[in-house]
Structures are given as structure tokens and as C-alpha cells.
């Protein structure tokens, strides 16, 4: 198993008091497996991804990524995990505004210490970003930014890709092309993919589909 989620609970305290978002969640993902995570807005999908990436800690439960318990690691070990094992595609893109597209695409691979130029060029080309290398994020459309965010993760060849609605800003054709690429990568390198999506059509193309409801897998 590349990912094991075991009895995870998570609450947030807002102005209305404490709200339980995840309530004893269990989920497994095998290496190379692809999984679609669906659920209505506010059901906790993004929250789950941040817990897996070690950006936040669960209140209870265990999260294992490639044999390491994420919520027991210290900051630098969690950072190392994100750098080398887990690739994140954020819902809000989170590109680095001061780097141009080419540098943004190469950034995570350089951090991980495995920049592979031919592979980077292939990813760039297949995402249709070849002509945009010198632009800065603020000069891109929403869809273009999203493709850069995906390319950045794919270029680093992580073992586990966590993607939060990676096709939310793309038209159907582009969404299909992006998903093709992600599936191809996971097949080629044995990477597992955990993808949040609202699209039933796209969800259907993945190995497995899980629906979140009331903080549990329905």
C-alpha cells in the first residue's frame, strides 16, 4: 500500500463552534492505483488531501504514506516526504508568482533533485505549455495556470499524486488530455493517483471511485 488512512478524525473550530469534517475515515490506495474522490462541496475532500500531504495534522487516526506515518513525522521529514514522494496539485494552483512558467514547471523536480529534461519537455509539450515558458503566472488564464500546476507535479515523478480538482478550470477536451497524461504517468512509473473531482465522467475513467459523505466513505 502506498497510502493507508486509518480512523482519521478532523474538526475545525469556526465562529459557530467546532465542526467535525472527517469522522473516522478509512481508505487504502495501492501503488499504481488510481482513485477518484467525490463528495459535495464542503465534505472535506481538500482537507483530507492536506492531511495526507502532512500540511495539517489529524486529530485522531493514522495516515501512512509509503510505510511512514505522516502524522508522527517532524516538520523536515514531512517536508522531505512532500519533496520526494508526494506530489500535490492544489485547487488554488499556488504557482510561484516570481518564477516564469518554465521555472515553475521545473521547480518541484529541482527540489526533489531529479530534474529530467527530456521528461520535463515532454510533459510541457503534452500540456500545451511549450509556447508559454517565458510568461509569468499572472499573465496566464485560469486553465493555463492549472496546467502549469499539474505539469510541475508530473515533472517531479512522485510516487503518489494528490490532485485537488485538477481539471476544474479546463474544457472537456483539455481535461481529457490532462487526465490521459496523469494516467499514463501513473501507469509508466507505478505512481498512485488520488484525484478529487466533481465530474462523474472523469471519475469513471479511474480504477476506483470513493464518495465522501458526513466525514466517512459512503
Amino acid at each position, binding site marked *: 500500500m502506498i497510502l493507508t488512512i486509518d480512523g482519521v478524525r478532523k474538526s475545525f473550530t469556526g465562529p459557530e463552534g467546532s465542526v467535525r469534517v472527517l469522522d473516522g475515515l478509512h481508505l487504502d490506495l495501492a501503488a499504481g492505483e488510481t482513485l477518484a474522490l467525490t463528495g459535495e462541496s464542503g465534505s472535506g475532500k481538500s482537507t483530507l488531501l492536506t492531511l495526507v500531504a502532512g500540511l495539517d495534522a489529524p486529530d485522531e487516526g493514522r495516515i501512512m504514506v509509503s510505510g511512514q506515518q505522516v502524522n508522527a513525522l517532524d516538520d523536515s521529514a514531512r*517536508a522531505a516526504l512532500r519533496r520526494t514522494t508526494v506530489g500535490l496539485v492544489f485547487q488554488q494552483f499556488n504557482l510561484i508568482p516570481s518564477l516564469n512558467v518554465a521555472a515553475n514547471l521545473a521547480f518541484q523536480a529541482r527540489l526533489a533533485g531529479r530534474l529530467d529534461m527530456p521528461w520535463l519537455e515532454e510533459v510541457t509539450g503534452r500540456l500545451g505549455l511549450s509556447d508559454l515558458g517565458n510568461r509569468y503566472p499572472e499573465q496566464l488564464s485560469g486553465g493555463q495556470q492549472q496546467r502549469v500546476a499539474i505539469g510541475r507535479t508530473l515533472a517531479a515523478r512522485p510516487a503518489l499524486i494528490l490532485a485537488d480538482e485538477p481539471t476544474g478550470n479546463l474544457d472537456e477536451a483539455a481535461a481529457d488530455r490532462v487526465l490521459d497524461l496523469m494516467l499514463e504517468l501513473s501507469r509508466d512509473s507505478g505512481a498512485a493517483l488520488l484525484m478529487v473531482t466533481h465530474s462523474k465522467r472523469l471519475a469513471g475513467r479511474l480504477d476506483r471511485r470513493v464518495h465522501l459523505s458526513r466525514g466517512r466513505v459512503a
Partner: protein
Amino acid sequence: MWRATAGVLASHWRRHPGQTATLLLGLALATALWTGVQAINAEARASYDRAADVVTQNGRPVIRDPSGADIPLEIYVALRRAGWPVAPVVEGRADIAGRDVTLIGIDPLSAPVLPAAEPTEGSATPETDTEGLIAFIGPPGRLMAAPETAARLRGALSQDVLNTPDIAPGTAIGDIGIVSQLLGLQNVITRMIVVADPPAHAPPLAQLAPGLEQLAPEAGADMAGLTGSFHLNLTAFGLLSFTVGLFIVHGAIGLAFEQRRGMFRTIRALGVPARTLGVLVAIELAIIATLAGAVGVGLGYVIAAALLPDVAATLRGLYGAPASGALALRPSWVAAGFAMAWLGTGIAAAQALWRMARLPLLESAQPRAWALASSASQTRQALAGLGILCVGAFAGWLADGLVAGFTALGGLLLGAALGLPWVLARGLAFAERRARAPLTEWFWADTRQQLPGLSLALMALMLALAANIGVSTMVGSFRGTFTGWLDQRLAAEIYLDAGTEDRADEIRTWLDPQVDAILPQVWTEAELGGEPATLRGLPNHATYRDNWPLLTPASGVWNALERGEGILINEQFARRTGTSTGDVVRLDDWTAPVLAVYSDYGNPGAEAAVGLRLFSQLHPNVPQVRFAVRLPVADAPKMVEALQNEFALGADQMRDQAALKALSLEIFERTFAVTGALNVLTLGVAAVAMLTSLLTLATQRLPQVAPIWAMGLGRTQIARLELLRSALLALGTAVCAIPVGLALAWVLLAVVNVAAFGWRLPMQVFPSDWVGLTALALLAALAAAALPARRLGRRPPADLLKVFANDR
């Protein structure tokens, strides 16, 4: 990983050259301010010392012949051989180019005070110390004189004549050999200055030179105390500018973090550990601080040199002047400048790094939430400020001593600065509640939300303003005191010293029909309340009734004094012993009632005064050989000349007080002008800090402004509101700064000064200055807001639309 991360950090500065420039500028200016203040402080001290020296002739005793006769050179040699540290002086009058000039010859190697000349005009290469010394000794030698006198002498003599503003008009100073030649003197000198106390084993003067007498410097005229007080206050100003600088550096660095918050979050989410990021940011900031510090030190030097066109002149004296002929860039200033840049950066960075380490990795901080969160921290900060203020006030009130004074000073500054955002926020909240129209309501609410981002800049502005008010109050009070001191001590037009009683009688008889009054000046040592003190005898004359600075003026004091019914005591003694008017105090064998207390600025010792008649009875042996002469001011110069011609009185025996006063005040004024310029500079630096903050906020503010724009408010209108906002915040800050500045001045004058010297400078306030300063602050704020507002006014709608397109 390290290289990739370092590259990202650098990319931000490359991508935003404007932010880079403002950060460096803010840091550099703060450093420059501090370096400049130090340079100017040193210069102000030097010029103040010179003013004091001119009046008191450095307070050294003099050896001379009581009859005014020349002293054979052998006696000087004998004294030197016996170990007496004396410096020879020749003095005489000569007719040069049809005008009488007093020539004073000194030995440059042993004289205690040397005048500082301005650099010779048009000289291609500045000369070294040695070259200067050689040129001074000659042949042909060079003379130094006040500019007007120098202009007259030039050409009439074969010697170079240098402009030297500190020398009294009508006088020229040169090497003893040259002057002896000009005066036609051979192997004689006029007097000797006792440069230091003679060693214990040295034979007494009476044995070595029986005919000569040693004269102590005039009692009470020692300005060391006054000078010391001014130095202390300048040091305090240095501290103030350091604090202002620290706040500015802190603000600039804080913004550098704020601007990159999102980026830090992203790269950490992508797998850069907090520690790696922290180390890299620390290195980055150290580089920035060093770069900006270097620029700042250079800039401070340039500023100081520009503010003091005569700094180069005054420091480049004949000796001990830097070879470059310009203001010396002293290692201590350089070190202090860098210390400032590093310390400010270090404090700010430590705080920011700590916050960064705890930064939630998830995007949750909405601007509104952030403002709300910081409203709580604002209150906490204000409470902390209040606590610090209380500690400061407590120290100022209850404790004594310099440490307490400086604690009070620090507590006041820090406490007031910390409390400022809270006070402003309360004011804005009040305005928001009173607002009727939705636009005004939005305006106030939006201003309040901007406050956290601006608060450091506003704190710096407030400190700058408070320092301004504090220092101008302090300096103004000081000037008033100094003038008052001159008027009190040097009320008469001419002071002369006849040397012997016979000559005194001669001069008196000659003078009597020509002047309004001749007032004997007598004093002696006495024991006052068990401690050694000076006792003066005051003649019964309007000069004293009108000018003597009684702290508690009461009717009948002078008549009672004249009748010998009591004594006056000085403030130092009164404060130290808790004596006040109506008490009795032992004066030698007499239990004397205290009639009044008088202020006696700058005198470290105890002093008492009695009527002249009583003084003569108590001390019949004290000869009356010194006089203050009253006559119409306009007649004084002529009378001085007549006295010199009639009785051959030397420059050390007679003073035309009007000329001396004018000279001292002029030197003093120069210092004030510099302080004024410095104040403007401080404000300018604070304005830059505000500009930096506003520019940064402008980019972060789009999401707040865009909806208002979408709802139908024009971009120019929004821009105008931005200007108004800055002006209002500056106004509020200025209003808060006034009481802080006054409190500051009060602490300086009434706590620090009393703690250091035992006497209190009376505080004088100058409300018109406050109005001017407030206007200046408004101007600075408007200037700082102009650029961001203009940019906002011209922002393409596409930028504003983007806010909606991807909701950030």
C-alpha cells in the same frame, strides 16, 4: 533543494525591483539617519565646546606679572625645567593697514586650545597635519583671524591669513615666533597658561618666579556643566534617531516577509522544510542588511557633510585634522551604522521567522480575518505598551539617577509607539459608528483594516515627530537658558581685570567720569552648610536686580541682601541639601537666613551670594581688582580700545561682552540649524517608510478595492480616498506625537538633566513649531501616498477583474 529555494527567494527581488529598491532604501536611510546624527552630534559638540572655550578660555589658570609687565623668557624656561606644564603666550597691539589689531602668539606644541581654521580656498591638494604645522610656524608662517579681520590683514602682511570663525574680531593668532617678530618683542612673553596641574614635586611658583602671580579662572564662568548637559541631550537625540531607525528597518523587513507570505507557504507545501527556508531567509536578510548598511553609512556621511558645509572646515583644523581635508568617516560611526542595520534586521527577522515557522501551511487567512485577528493583538500590544509606559513613568517619578532617566525615556518611546495603533483604531471605530453614508462607512472600515499593515510605518512616523518635538523643545529651552546664562553672568558691557589694587584704583579713577557704573567683582572660598563653596559679593545695582535669575522672585530680597540680612544660594546647593527660601544655613561662622534661590546653570559646585558691603566686612583681604563696567552698548568697543591703549590691558584681562556674546551665540546657532535640518531628515525617512508600506499594501489591497470599483466607484475617486486616508492617519499620528514629544522633552530636561547635573533646565514650549511639524507630517504622508494612489487610479480594469476571475 538549497539552490532551487535560494533561486526562488532571489527571483522575488528580481521580479519586483520596486520592492527591492524601497526595502534597500528604507534600510539605507535608517542607517544614514543614524550615521548622520552621530557625525553631526560630534560636530555639534565640537562647536559647542569651542563656543564655551571662547568665553572661558578653556578655564585654565594663567601666570602673569601683576603690573602687566612682560615676563623674561628665562622665567618661562625655568618653570618648564621645574616641571610646570605651562604654555607661553605673547600678546600685543599692532597697527596693521591703518587699524589696531590684537596679535596673540602661541606655541602650537603646548597651547591647550587651538583655533580651527577653514580650509584655504583654491588649494588643490589638502595638506597634512605636518604640512599645516610647518606652514603655521613658518617662515613666513600664517595667522588666523575672524573672516572680516582676516580680509583686512591679508595683503598687508607677508603671512597667510586663514579664516577662523571662532576667533574674536579684531584679533589674530599666530605662532609665537612670528607674532613676537611682528610686535618687535625679543626674549619676552606676556603670560603663561597653566595647561595642567603642576606635579606635586614641582617647586612652588613663589620660589621660581617671585614676582609673578597665578590667577584662577573666573569663578562660575566654567561652562563645563552646561556643555556636559548639552552633550547628554545630544546623546539622547542620537538614541531617539536610533529608535526611529530601528522601527523603520523593522517595518521594511516585516513588509519583505508580508509580501512573500504566499510564496513561502507554497514552497513549504512543495516540500521545503521550515528550517531550510529559515536559514536561507536569514542569509538573504544578512546580505540585504549589509548592502543597505554600506549604502546607508556612505549616505549618512554625505548627508552630514552636506548639512554641515563647515564641518570639513571646522574639523580640518591645523592639527589633528584628517588628511583628506573632509569630514572623517570614523570607524565607530561605520560600526554603529552597520550595527543599526543588522540589529534592526535581526530583531525584525527573528520575529518574522518565528511567525513563519508557525505559519499555517494552509491558506486560511483571509484579509478580513487577519485584520480581526490583529485587532486582538493590537489590544494586547497596547496593553503591553501601557505597561511599559507605567514602568517608565514609575522610574521617572520614583527613582533617581541617570538609569532611571533613560529607563523613563525608553519606556515612554516604546510604550507610546506600541499604543499608537490601538489609539488610532479606536478613533477609526468611533468615526465608523458615526458615519451615515455607506461610502464613508466603508472608508472608515477599510482604513481600520489597513491599519495593521501601516502601523509600523506610523509608529516610526510618530517617533520621528515626537523626537522632533522633544528635541526642538529641548534645544529651544537650552538656547533660552544659554542666552539667559550669558545675560546673567555677562550682563555688563565690559569686564576687566586690573591685576593689582594700585592699577585698579588708577583705572577706576580714569573710568569713573566716562561710564554709567563700575561694579566690583569679588568672590572667595567659603564653607556653606559644611561643604566647600564659592561666596560672591554682589554690589547693590540694577544690573543684578534686573538680571540675577532668582527662582522664587520675592519683593524686598535685594534690599534685605544689601542690609546684610541674609544670603542667596544657588539651585545646585538648594536641591542637593533640600534647602529653600526661609531656611537658615551655616556660612562659615554665620547662621544665615536664605533670602532666595537662584539658578546657576552649568556650575557644578555650591555657591552663595551676599551684599558687597557685608562681603567686604567678612573678607576684608579679598582685593577688588576685577570690575564689570556698565556703559551704552554702542560705546563699548571704543572704550575697550581706549582701555587697551591707556593701560595696556591684554585680551585675557578685558572682554567686550557684546562681541563675545554675539560670537558664542552665532556658533551655537549653527548647531541649531543643523539640528533643524536633521529633524527634517528624520521626517523624510519616516515618509519613505510609509511609502514602502503603502506600495506593498497597494498590491495586497486589490481584492478589497475591486468590489467597490465594481459597485460603481471610479478609480480616480478611489485614488483620492487613498490620499485622504494617508493624510488622516498622519494627522492622527501627529496629534498623538505632540504629547509624547512634550513628555520626552520633559524627561530630558527635568529628569535626565537633573539626575546628571543637579540642576533643571526650565522647559519652554513652542506651539507654532507643532503646527509646522503637523503640516510637514501631512505633506510627507501625502507624498508617500501619491505614487500608490496614482498607480491605483491608473490600474487597468483587467487587473481589477482578475480578482474576480480566480478569487486569488
